[in-house]
């Protein structure tokens, strides 16, 4: 369970998060939605300890994450932009991350098969296309089988086949009872894999509930229209 209490964060004068309170219970798949620059990535990075909030606390299974690092063993993270050391080969990168995580068991082969990455294992990361890099990124995120999975825009750059593969992987993780936090702009994807949605607007949580709740509240049958409705209301 992840518990976020009154998180504030500003980058110099730009106030990104203005008091976010959130509880993510175990075994839930939650989508983090919101317009560009609304603070989704900042919120995710705060949970990972990469961004240090100005105010507020974050608890992971009732333990404060401040100044901790071992808690990250329970988290698999997919960064938004797949930036890797360019002079490393794909298999070297995978080996290195495995080595750095130490004793964790990894089943990278399963995901290399799923994303058909075998032909690329011996290529340097700098020579890969954006979509292939994203697949490598996904392999790194899923191979450790940790109880919490955080995905920051997992669909970016993926072709339709890989998108289907990704959906299946996420659904499989849900069956295993894992906690998922996914930020995305593809509404059909969110609707297919998430139970709950959380809408961030101007640094605060504007809506938090199930997709059905959202449809009821906005009187829209279609999820995309419901979100658009929410956005319009937010702007008004």
């Amino acid at each position: 369970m992840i518990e976020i209490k009154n998180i504030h964060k500003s980058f110099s004068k730009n106030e990104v998060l203005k008091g976010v309170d959130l509880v993510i219970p175990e075994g839930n798949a939650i989508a983090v939605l919101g317009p560009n620059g609304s603070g989704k990535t900042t919120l995710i990075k705060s949970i990972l300890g990469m961004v240090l909030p100005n105010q507020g606390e974050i608890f992971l299974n009732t333990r404060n994450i401040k100044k901790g690092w071992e808690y990250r063993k329970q988290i698999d993270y997919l960064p938004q932009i797949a930036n890797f050391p360019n002079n490393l080969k794909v298999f070297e990168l995978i080996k290195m991350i495995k080595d750095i995580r130490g004793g964790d068991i990894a089943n990278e082969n399963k995901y290399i098969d799923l994303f058909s990455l075998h032909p690329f294992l011996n290529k340097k990361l700098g020579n890969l296309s954006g979509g292939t890099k994203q697949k490598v990124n996904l392999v790194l995120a899923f191979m450790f089988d940790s109880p919490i999975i955080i995905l920051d825009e997992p669909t970016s750059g993926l072709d339709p086949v890989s998108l289907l593969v990704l959906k299946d992987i996420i659904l499989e993780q849900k069956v295993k009872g894992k906690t998922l936090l996914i930020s995305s702009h593809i509404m059909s994807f969110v609707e297919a894999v998430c139970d709950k949605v959380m809408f961030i607007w101007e640094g605060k949580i504007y809506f938090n509930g199930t997709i059905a709740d959202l449809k009821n509240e906005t009187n829209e049958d279609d999820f995309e229209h419901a979100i658009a409705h929410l956005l319009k209301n937010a702007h008004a």
Partner: protein
Amino acid sequence: MLKILKYSFYDLIRSRWSYVYFAFYLLLGFVLLFLNNDVSKAVITLMNVIIILVPLMGTMFGIMYFYNSKEFTELLLAQPLKRTSIFIGQYLGVATSLSLSLILGLGIPFLVYGIFKSEAILDFSLLLVTGGFLTFIFTAISFYIGLSNENRIKGFGYAILFWLFMAVIYDGLFLISLILFEEYPLDTFSLIASMANPIDLSRILILLKLDISALMGYTGAVFQKFFGTSWGLIVSLGVLFLWVLIPVLLIRRKALKKDF
């Protein structure tokens, strides 16, 4: 931390620039020794090169590696690793591989020449030790500058400026102040002023070991009295060590506070 050190070290060992750096010292060592045929003279010439070049290389490699490994660093930050061990590990990786290039590059020609049979072995070791210290000092400072500046151009600028200040401008200011205040006793002042700059400190340390302080007049005698003794040597090495320690502590402090 050791794992990060290992990967940074291997990463650099595989890069072309480490070899260029290593080959440069190798060539320099051979040329100086076999053309000069005098170890002491070779050590003095080497000192003049090392005192300027080693800090420059430490600064450039440090800042370049820091900015180039930004992606790698971000990847590591999401892993169960301590923040400080990521940055200190990378720093030690860079500084160790640079020092290794220096020590092997100069060590091999001197070994071939037969340094162990020569009386200059101590001077030569001191040269390598100060070269190592200078590498660690300037790499640490450039890492700190990198951590403090998101903007690469600014970071590069500050790092080069710092090197220029320490290697060139500092001496100028020092000389001007000596001329301006020549009416006053300046021994203590010049001792402290040369302690405050690792480049000057290294230069004096080596020069005095080479017994050419007689050329430097009265101040030389004062310096000889201080640096020439083993107490002076210990204090100087201690100061050089502080010059490593303080930037490393600054890196640690900055790394703990930064957002990524």
